[in-house]
């Protein structure tokens, strides 16, 4: 990836993180930790990789995206706002009564391809979208992001079996391996590891990726595009809370909103990061 594009994506991802903080702070609830860990991947997908057009959000040829780990909607909404699907102001009313932006993704929100948030379900819908693409001989790709805790759900493995059996090579699933879930480290709760071996055993093409390095993200998704005959999983090593020092790798920031002081500190840190990128 050339350095200008990389810097542009880094700036957008930083703005997406600011949206996560802005949204969860104003909502006084939500899930900042796992939202921050997927901001770079989402920014890459929507601002570089995917064939999507906010002016034509229902284009039948578009690439699809399903946020299977739907609780991290603040990240998706931030990126969709940056992309122009709806005004950035909407972020401030996230989770409010009458708001466009629901606590978890809703199909009626511009740019959102599937309602999700009950864990384990998004990947099945993504399989259905990929199957429809095959049936219609369309060339679109379907992307979905799952949490590493989420894959403890049995439905994920029903879907994994299905996708491999139906040879859905137009499906790319990302597992956000930040290592933490609500009750603690995934290794202590009910470990889904070894994640790569499990998907390989289910017949998927497995790629690993550094979730916070755009060169590596580009490498991983480029490789994913070349795979034929089987679905692709990208297991991304990420940092929960990435970009906000006091949220990084802290399980407590899974589902807690920042208070005013924490909000100001987080925004100051992200503003400094953005300034550094702009200099």
């Amino acid at each position, binding site marked *: 990836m050339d350095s200008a594009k990389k810097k542009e994506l880094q700036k957008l991802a930083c703005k997406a993180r600011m949206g996560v903080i802005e949204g969860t702070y104003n909502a006084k609830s939500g899930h900042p930790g796992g939202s921050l860990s997927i901001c770079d991947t989402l920014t890459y997908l929507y601002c570089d990789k995917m064939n999507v057009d906010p002016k034509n959000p229902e284009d*039948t040829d578009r690439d699809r995206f399903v946020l299977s780990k739907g609780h991290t909607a603040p990240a998706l909404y931030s990126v969709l706002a940056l992309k122009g699907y709806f005004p950035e102001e909407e972020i401030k009313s996230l989770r409010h009564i009458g708001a466009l932006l629901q606590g978890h993704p809703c199909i009626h929100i511009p740019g959102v391809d*599937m309602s999700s948030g009950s864990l384990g379900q998004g990947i*099945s*819908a993504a399989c*259905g979208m990929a199957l429809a*693409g095959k049936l219609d001989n369309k060339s679109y790709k379907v992307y979905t992001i799952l949490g590493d805790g989420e894959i403890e759900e049995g*439905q994920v493995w029903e879907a994994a079996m299905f996708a491999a059996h139906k040879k859905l090579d137009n499906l790319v699933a990302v597992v956000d391996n930040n290592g933490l879930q609500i009750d603690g480290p995934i290794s202590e709760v009910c470990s889904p590891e070894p994640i790569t071996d499990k998907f390989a055993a289910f017949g998927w093409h497995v790629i690993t990726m550094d979730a916070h390095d755009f060169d590596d993200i580009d490498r991983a998704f480029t490789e994913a595009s070349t795979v034929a005959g089987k679905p692709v999983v990208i297991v991304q090593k990420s940092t929960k809370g990435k970009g906000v020092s006091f949220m990084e790798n802290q399980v407590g920031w899974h589902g807690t909103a920042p208070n005013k002081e924490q909000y100001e500190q987080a925004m100051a840190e992200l503003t400094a990061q953005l300034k550094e990128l702009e200099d």
Partner: protein
Amino acid sequence: MADVVKKATRESYGEALRDLAEQYPQLVVLDADLAAATKTGIFKKAYPDRFFDCGIAEANMMGVAAGLASCGKIPFASTFAMFAAGRAFEIVRNSIGYPHLNVKIGATHAGISVGEDGATHQCNEDIALMRTIPGMTIINPCDDVEARAAVKAALDFNGPVYMRFGRLAVPVINDAATYKFELGKGVVMRDGSDITIVATGLMVNEAMQAAEALAADGISARVVNIHTIKPLDRELICKCARETGVIVTAEEHSVIGGLGSAVAEAVTECCPVPVVKIGVNDEFGHSGPAVDLLKEFGLSAENIAKTAKEAVKLKK
């Protein structure tokens, strides 16, 4: 009576899918390793490229159906009622109901008439479960003619539909030549003035026989076939409450949450009259031949007639 044609509505389902496939190119069928039993195998044989076996994985099947529908397909996700409404309930709610996707759920082997397989497979709760999902349409056809029409109606309707079919061969009571299906509209099968029997599914035929027996005893019973349980034809139900003053409901389903509950909910709001429910009481079924089980659990013309006689006495 020797020439009564009997057919299981699951058979009608499989045949209707096959017969409608050409007219509806977006129609695709999913099953969960039960194609021989749900009769989607009939469709599979004719249109193998539009049939997808998801294996024994109903949760994923419902999610796949949602994804297909979001891309313009009209998927018919098929399995036993127990697994469609029971096991996959939360996926049906969140991945199909909440986004209001155009998924059709073909639930076969509903009710006690599953027979010998016993309680684990006798789903008497599916109507109750599906009724709680906002925007879900529920159709429970009474015979072959109605079942085929229901599949067509579901195809022409944009939104999630739960269709309930049976394993047992039941008499064909409608005339295919003249039959018209109107989604959400109840059908007065026989007029009467002393009592209304509101029935659904295979209980419609039992209700007709009960009305005949009641007539011999001087009781004029109206029989209403409610094929669409949701949205309920409240207008007709309330009219019957006003005109006959008492209602007996009959369904092959739990008395909790099904047709009887829906009718009672409507009547209490518009014209409170006694509503006596016939269905499976608050208990599990057990193994045995379907016809014997139906009798044992009171899902018979005899029990409807007996209950109706008592119910008439409740009128003020």
